């Protein structure tokens, strides 16, 4: 038992060392950490509360006083953009966690049991995947209503397929392994084999899917809020700040009102994707080979159908 624990620790240490030697992971982690710190200390950095209204200084361009300018009510954009990150990142992370949970449970069950259940869940995932994501989200929003929690639920319900596919694929190959045969011979229950014995071996695709989903959800939140159908406007999120750009005058004359929030989204998502790429290389050296890598890309990027 003691020995086993040591092995685990050293695996973790090897993992961290490899990760820190992977350039794209390091760049990504740096970007993400800086942005999260900025979001947490938004008020300290900008010196102004995001909701502080100063009508006389409305719609000022970027200057030394207001690095990102001010909006129509004179609120400091730097403060708003930085603190907007809080909600956007929160939504992305929680929704991605829930989506992963759904995807993992379904993927593990379908992958291990196979047969009819697998075929049905597979068809459902194919269907959800091909449905234009935003429309699906909109349909759910029209049924559930707006609000941060509803947005998170909707994202989780519409974004579990990537994880499902990856986990299912791993289970397909793992269920024939010798240690699973042994489990079955011991007479372990199915849930125990699935969740206690096989699942830990599929951790790497789950971790990678987690990062990719965060990126997807943050962009989706931006789109949804831009349309005015996401998080209520009273809470600043990156997407909500972009709503200002629905007004042509803003697009024309007050570029700082939409360029900075959009840039924050792009940079953060870029960081998350870098981490995802790095994690993929580090966690699973097998997937460094091109062919395998492209199979992953099918599932991760393509959001496309059956890989029977």
């Amino acid at each position, binding site marked *: 038992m003691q020995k086993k624990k040591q092995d685990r620790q050293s695996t973790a240490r090897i993992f961290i060392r490899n990760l820190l030697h992977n350039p794209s992971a390091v760049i990504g982690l740096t970007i993400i950490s800086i942005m999260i710190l900025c979001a947490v200390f938004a008020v300290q950095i900008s010196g102004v509360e995001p909701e502080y209204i100063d009508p006389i200084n409305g719609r000022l361009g970027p200057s030394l006083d207001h690095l990102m300018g001010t909006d129509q009510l004179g609120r400091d954009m730097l403060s708003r953009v930085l603190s907007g990150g809080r909600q956007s990142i929160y939504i992305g992370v929680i929704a991605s966690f829930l989506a992963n949970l759904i995807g993992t449970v379904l993927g593990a069950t379908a992958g291990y049991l196979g047969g009819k259940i697998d*075929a049905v869940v*597979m*068809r459902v995932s*194919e*269907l959800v*995947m*091909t*449905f*234009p994501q*935003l*429309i699906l989200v*909109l*349909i759910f*929003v*029209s*049924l559930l209503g707006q609000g941060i929690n509803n947005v998170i639920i909707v994202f989780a319900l519409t974004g579990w397929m990537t994880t499902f596919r990856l986990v299912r694929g791993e289970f397909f190959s793992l269920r024939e392994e010798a240690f699973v045969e042994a489990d079955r011979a011991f007479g372990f229950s199915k849930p125990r084999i699935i969740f206690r014995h096989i699942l830990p071996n599929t951790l790497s695709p789950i971790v990678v899917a987690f990062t990719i989903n965060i*990126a997807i959800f943050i*962009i989706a939140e*931006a*789109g949804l809020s*831009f*349309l*005015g*159908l996401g998080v209520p406007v009273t809470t600043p999120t990156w997407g909500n700040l*972009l709503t200002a*750009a*629905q007004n*042509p005058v803003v*697009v*024309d004359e007050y*570029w700082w009102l*939409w*360029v900075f929030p*959009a840039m924050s*989204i*792009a*940079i953060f*998502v*870029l960081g998350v*994707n870098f981490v995802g790429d790095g994690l993929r290389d580090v966690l699973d050296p097998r997937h460094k080979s*091109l*062919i395998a*890598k*492209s199979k992953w*890309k*099918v599932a991760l*990027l*393509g*959001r*496309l*159908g*059956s890989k*029977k």
Partner: protein
Amino acid sequence: MVSFIVRRIAILVPMAFTISALIFFASRLSPIDPILAMIPPDMASDSANLEQLREELGLNDHIVLQYLTWLKNIATGDFGYSLQSGQQISEILALRMPATLELVLSALILSTILALTLGLFAGAKKGGIADKLSRVLGVVGIAIPDFFIGLALLNVFAYRVSWLPSGNRVAPGQVTLWDRFPNYILPVATLTIAMLAVLIRYTRNSVLDTLNRDFVKTARSKGVPEWRVLYSHVFRNSLGPVMVLLAFRLPLLVGGSILVETVFQWPGIGTTIIAAVTASDYPVIMVVSMLIAMVILFASFLVDIVKSILDPRVRLGGGN
């Protein structure tokens, strides 16, 4: 092949029924009185008539029977009425659908051509200009929200230099297609760039995959000229997975341009959906979701066929 197609259709039919049932019953969970969706608004204002109509329209029937009636109506082209405008939904679709189709179809074609060309050159010469360009596009393109591309293009080309109109499909006085052409440039460009990123990454990977295959080495060692190796060996063989991705993009034809349509005030299905969702206009939402679902089923059918042509094992192995 025939039996394979028949088997596929046999799967499609129950799926189509399941989806339509889901959509129908989900909409019944909404608090809106379904009778409003079935009659023009001027008739709905008369409350004495309403009860009689309810009976006549079968709204007091068993819910399963109602569902079947709804299916029959949809099948015969009677989509009902929009709660918001009182217009017939089939009219709205006839008006809005072409606008979206024009937009998305051009973007789909353009992005495919660009992605295939760039992807092929990128894969053929790793580290070359095309490769660097497509890698940057692939990484950055995924990170940038597509409507931001639209806003940036608007700001530069419509406002800073005023070369192009800022939106709308048809402006007063524009008669011919040529007159309207400038209106298309920015929205189509935005959508093309948005669609390009994934496709380029995908093509490049597919080309690199194929380049590693044995038959490419054989062709090269036989002394086949490099351009021929690239065209008839690599390109054609890496097309398969790309075709599958494209078929799966067909549903975008109906619902893939919501954000771009909003940015450019494009009177298409996307803006219709937004208006419907904002106003809880369930009949419109139902019909549009049905439409998309049917395109999806068709697309997945198409994918199966394409796959079975590319790889006979799919056909013989019984699919699943």
